[in-house]
């Protein structure tokens, strides 16, 4: 019983992104990495970004229109700030997922 409760607690945390290090943002219009420099520039400045990974904490994948961000241990991304950083980079953020330890994506709610 204790194990089930613990598992449920972990799942709850995961669905809110608390324990994830990486998050994936779907970004419409993201088709050229040269043009996406503004996204990297803006997002990497956010205080919860772990700049030690990827390119200053941000990885752009134009085939999938995805931006993966690395978040500092124990911190949650501020979705409003994150989406505004993407918008001022010239693109449209759509949704965000937390990357679980097994690689599965869980939709991350604000």
């Amino acid at each position, binding site marked *: 019983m204790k194990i089930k409760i613990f598992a449920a607690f972990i799942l709850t945390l995961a669905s809110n992104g608390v324990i994830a290090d990486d998050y994936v943002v779907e970004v*419409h*219009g*993201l*088709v*050229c*990495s*040269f*043009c996406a*420099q*503004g*996204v*990297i*520039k*803006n997002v990497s400045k956010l205080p919860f970004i772990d700049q030690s990974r990827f*390119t200053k904490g941000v*990885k*752009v*994948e*134009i*085939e999938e*229109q995805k931006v993966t961000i690395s978040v500092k241990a124990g911190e949650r991304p501020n979705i409003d700030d994150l989406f505004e950083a993407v918008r*001022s*980079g*010239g*693109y*449209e953020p759509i949704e965000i997922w937390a990357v679980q330890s097994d690689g599965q994506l869980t939709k991350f709610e604000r």
Partner: protein
Amino acid sequence: MRRLLAAALFLCTSSHAHQPVMDMAPRWSNGYGIQIRYERYGSNDLKRGREDISNLQGLERFVYTTWLEGVYTFDRSVRLTAKIPFVHQRRDVNPNGVPASRSTNGLGDIIIGLPLKRYSNHKAMTQNWSFTPSLRMPTGTSSGDFPISDGSWDLGLSLGFSRETPTFYQLYDLYYWKEGAGRHGMQTGDSFGLDVNLGIHPWHSNETNSGIFLMWDLSVSHSDAPNQQNLTTAAGADRIYTGPIFVAYRQNLMFRAEFKYLAYERVDNIGLSRGNQFSLSVGATF
């Protein structure tokens, strides 16, 4: 008559509305870019209308322009661009049967543009419409036997559309230049044209933020006759240029090489052909 304007020199230099560094970048708020572009064109082919005729006098004209270009993006819908040309032009003439070579160096006419863009982003595609008013200022010398500028304030307008997917790029740009009255009685003719760039994005690396574009350009233009001309200055003309474009980028640096083959040309009366055009540019965005 010795102040005949070198009409083609500025009729065609950067008539196009191509924007510094790249059409799609910098598209981020408070982004900026700089670019140095070297451009060369000219010929010793003499034409009457569409026909090549003998150039017994050995006339020729070549123009080498180094453009210093800059762009500032307020937000993705409003940019400000500046294009500053440094011109070296050379021509061989034969006044009164005496061959002579003349050249001029110096600052050309600075062009300020205000691209207004309307972007729309879709899942795997981004596109924008752009409307760009431009002002060409008479900063080039209009004196001497071989002036760089006609000394006029000119107004340009362009309407563009571009669309990009991860693998395909297309740009269409329709432009018009209204020429003002210049100094010393000189005035170039108005011009308009259409540029089309179609290309692919065959390789890129997400890890290093690098890649290449391979494109093909088609440029169709018409220019009215200037109010003065001789064999070494430009007549009014219709032209079609076409040729390949190669673009490579890495991080915030971009390199572009472009060759434009003069596929069709019709000049008013008799005039030197403008010849093929070649350009190289290096740019950076921040």
